[in-house]
């Protein structure tokens, strides 16, 4: 993939990701997050991970974000009113986040393979659904089943948690 596309999509992702946490209106945050996810999916595609990219769009942007929107609408959440800023906490948090960022920079720049270009792929990779499916049902069958149970449990939990208290 031409590198300028990488830059575009990376930039989009980061900018809209920042937008998520900057916006005061939760709906705006959600929409920013959706765009960020779409950019992320594009990045996945650039890495020849087509199935994962599609799943990202379908599940994350399509289902999870819709869920967020539904909840925000349901509870009629408005933009939060301005409150007194706790400067100590803010500064502390910013410092920690920056420190983390710097550390990540440092680690990545010392990584030996960081400057290597990606090795070429041998054959066509359009059948990654097939391959992932094969892996899921053979080597990772047990985690797959457990994931199934997990989702079931989550479903039951959600139903129980959101019941109104009986009068």
């Amino acid at each position, binding site marked *: 993939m031409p590198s300028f596309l990488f830059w575009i999509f990376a930039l989009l992702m980061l900018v809209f990701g920042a937008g998520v946490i900057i916006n005061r209106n939760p709906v705006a945050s959600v929409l920013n997050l959706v765009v960020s996810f779409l950019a992320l999916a594009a990045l996945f595609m650039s890495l020849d991970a087509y199935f994962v990219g599609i799943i990202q769009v379908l599940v994350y942007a399509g289902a999870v974000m819709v869920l967020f929107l539904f909840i925000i609408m349901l509870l009629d959440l408005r933009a939060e009113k301005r409150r007194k800023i706790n400067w100590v*906490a803010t500064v*502390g*948090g910013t410092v*920690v*986040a920056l*420190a*983390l960022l710097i*550390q990540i920079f*440092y*680690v990545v720049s010392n990584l030996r393979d960081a400057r290597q270009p990606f090795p070429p792929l041998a054959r066509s990779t359009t059948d990654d659904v097939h391959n992932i499916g094969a892996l899921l049902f053979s080597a990772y069958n047990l985690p797959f089943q457990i994931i199934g149970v997990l989702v079931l449990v989550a479903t039951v939990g959600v139903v129980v948690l959101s019941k109104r208290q009986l009068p």
Partner: protein
Amino acid sequence: MNATVLPWIALLAPLASAVAIMLFTLRRKALSSYISCAAVVVSFVAAVALFARHETAAAAMPWMDVAGVFTVAIGLTLDPLSRMMLVLVSGIGALIHIYSLGYMREDAGKARYFAALSLFMFAMLGIVLANNFVMLFIFWELVGFTSYVLIGHWFERDAAAKAANKAFITTRIGDFGFMIGILMVWMATGSINFTEIAPQMSILSAHPTFLAVAALLIFCGAAGKSAQFPLHVWLPDAMEGPTPVSALIHAATMVAAGVYMLVRVGFIIQASATALLVIAWIGAITAVMAALIATQQNDIKRILAYSTLSQLGYMVMAVGLASGNAAIFHLFTHAFFKALLFLAAGSVIVALHHEQDIWEMGGLRRPLRITFLTFLAGGFALMGLPPFSGFFSKDAILALAYERNVPIFVVALATAFLTAFYVTRLVVIVFFGQPRSHAARASRESPAVMTIPLSVLALFATTGGFTGFSRHFVVVPHETSGAAVPVFALAALFCGAGLALLLYRGRATETFDVDLLQRKFYLDEFYRWLIRSTQELLASIAAFTDRWIIDAGAVRGVAGGTWGFGALLRLLQLGNLQAYSFLFGLGIVLIIYFAVLR
């Protein structure tokens, strides 16, 4: 009869009798008394046989061996000293056993009494025959135990039980020092056997302080057993026991064990001049102090008890003046006349139906003729009137003091003066004058079973001092100071006797009261205060420790510390989500820093 068996017979016959009585014949009182008497007579016969033959064969049995480092054998030593002591102890013991047949005739615990008496004979003979420190110490303790049993024979009486305790505990204090002294000697010479230690005295002499301390600690044991100052407080109270017990144990034999032990290990003590000086002065102090107290006592047995203390002081003084021979000579004569005095006093007490206060007596010389004459003989011997035996032995000690240590001579002379004083006082008040109570008026002479031992002892008290007789038994010290000492001694005697006659002739009550002497220099009160304040100090320390260190410190400290720490930790629970995430992030940054980037 094989000679090596004889000492064992002499030693073990009383033990066999004690065991037989305790196991089999406790209910049959008369039989028990006869068994006991028979055993002690057997011992006496064996002792005389050994004495006559001049046996010196010593038998030994190995008993304890700890890795070759510490060996104890049960051995018997048979030199002239121990042979003499054997005869003395078993002879006087036999006389007293016979006397007890009469004295304890109506006593309910007669069997128990004779069993304890036999056990005592066994233990005392063991002390005399022992050839090493450990065996000596074992029998030493056994003698102390039997003394406890016999003093507390009438244990229903509170005073007797307390006196028995006091005797045992006080002598135990002395024995503690004794044990440490023995251990010190063993540490230095590697042996506890007397014959093995003697050649090694040079090792000990090289360390004078160590030797002095060891010698003085060994003397502690003698000070306890022979009731020297300051461990003398038990002897007067021990008069709560039956009179034959007082005669045997607390006059003739057990208290003499201390002096005997000092002479036996004389080679250790005489190697240290410091120890000798201390011992001599303690003996002198005991002698004069006891004599002073005796002048103000009103119980006949108490007076005799203090007199014993005083004479023991003389013996210890002689040991301290580096003459074991003079000490043993005085021990020899003292055994006879003191036992005589006690038995005669017992005769008086029984005749007056167990009355012991001398002011309730009086004019007894006519009804109790034999008792009076024998008592008089004993009294003269005690005062040191020639030609009675006491004169010779006391004179030997006074001559020794005159030669070697004049201050002690002065003290000893003063004691002789006081001795004459209180003996005369006693005789005048008890036997002369008018009878002062109904019991005195109605008294009759004691039966023959009591008066015959009295007569035998009186004979020895009178004649025992003559060199012709005594040289077979003891080494009579030579007289080297000429006529000065006997003159001084006789002068002191007549002054004391004369003063007492003057003050007490024909009187019915005490002439003067000296509280200090009557209360025995307040020593008993002092000891009581000492023990009480020590205990209170210890108790307050323990209470303080318990209340502040354990309760407040350890228990509440731990609880409070935990609580405080918990209170500190509680501050971490902020309840604020973002604070938690901040701390979380901080932790991650730090971990990455230390794990990855360092």
